[in-house]
């Protein structure tokens, strides 16, 4: 019984305000949330804008100074953010698959999207990731079974593909197939 990508993520659509609410909430969020990007105040420095413009340009494979909807998440990741796919969908106004492939965004339109993610309160800290993985540490000994972690990553949350999981887990399991998750998280956060 595989879970659907339901709106289990209890995050209200904040408007450029860093609200402190990283604790797990019981209240389910409305299924279709949208973001009002026009109310997001873009506050990047000129240096940052230059970096962002450069990264944006790298993703423009058409040459029209725009990028596709389906590239937005990756550009944000390239710029140091870790948005969930759900968050990006919300920012893009819950686009269809067709939208994702065909709609394009200009740099100026991208900036409030990025700002929104930058402002969002759900930043993953070292402790967050360790805590999250500890949920699967059955023996409470600081390790999780690689095989179980692979299954978790590919069946829970925003499922990862086998290729993604393989790439992620490469070299992380010890001879018993176990992963020391603190070391794992440190490795993840090093880039």
């Amino acid at each position, binding site marked *: 019984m595989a879970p659907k990508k339901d709106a289990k993520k209890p995050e209200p659509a904040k408007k450029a305000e860093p609200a402190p609410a990283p604790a797990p909430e019981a209240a389910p969020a409305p299924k279709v949330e949208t973001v009002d990007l026009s109310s997001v105040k873009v506050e990047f420095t000129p240096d940052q804008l230059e970096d962002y413009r450069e990264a944006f340009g*790298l993703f423009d494979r058409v040459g029209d100074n725009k990028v596709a909807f389906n590239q937005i998440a990756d550009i944000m990741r390239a710029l140091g953010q870790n948005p969930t796919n759900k968050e990006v969908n919300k920012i893009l106004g819950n686009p269809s698959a067709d939208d994702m492939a065909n709609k394009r965004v200009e740099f100026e339109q991208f900036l409030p999207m990025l700002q929104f993610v930058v402002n969002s309160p759900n930043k993953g800290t070292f402790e967050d990731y360790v805590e*999250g993985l500890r949920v699967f540490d059955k023996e409470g000994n600081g390790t999780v*079974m690689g*095989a179980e972690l692979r299954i978790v990553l590919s069946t829970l*949350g925003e499922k990862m593909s086998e290729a993604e999981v393989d790439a992620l887990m490469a070299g992380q399991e010890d001879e018993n197939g176990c992963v020391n998750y603190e070391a794992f998280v440190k490795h993840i956060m090093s880039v």
Partner: protein
Amino acid sequence: MDCRKEGCSQPQEEDIMDIPLDDPAANKAATKIQAGFRGHMTRKKMKDDKPREEVSMRCCRRLG
């Protein structure tokens, strides 16, 4: 059930059955971790591409 790792000493079937598919907390934890992992992997990929960015801006580069 397919045991992926031969070296595992614990019974995998039980563990697989234990995966809390409907647990909101577990899903939330997983989502956060996955977001962090995807960010990491994208940045790692970008790093690998960086030296070639000037030449290959518009050719043969999978950044999407």
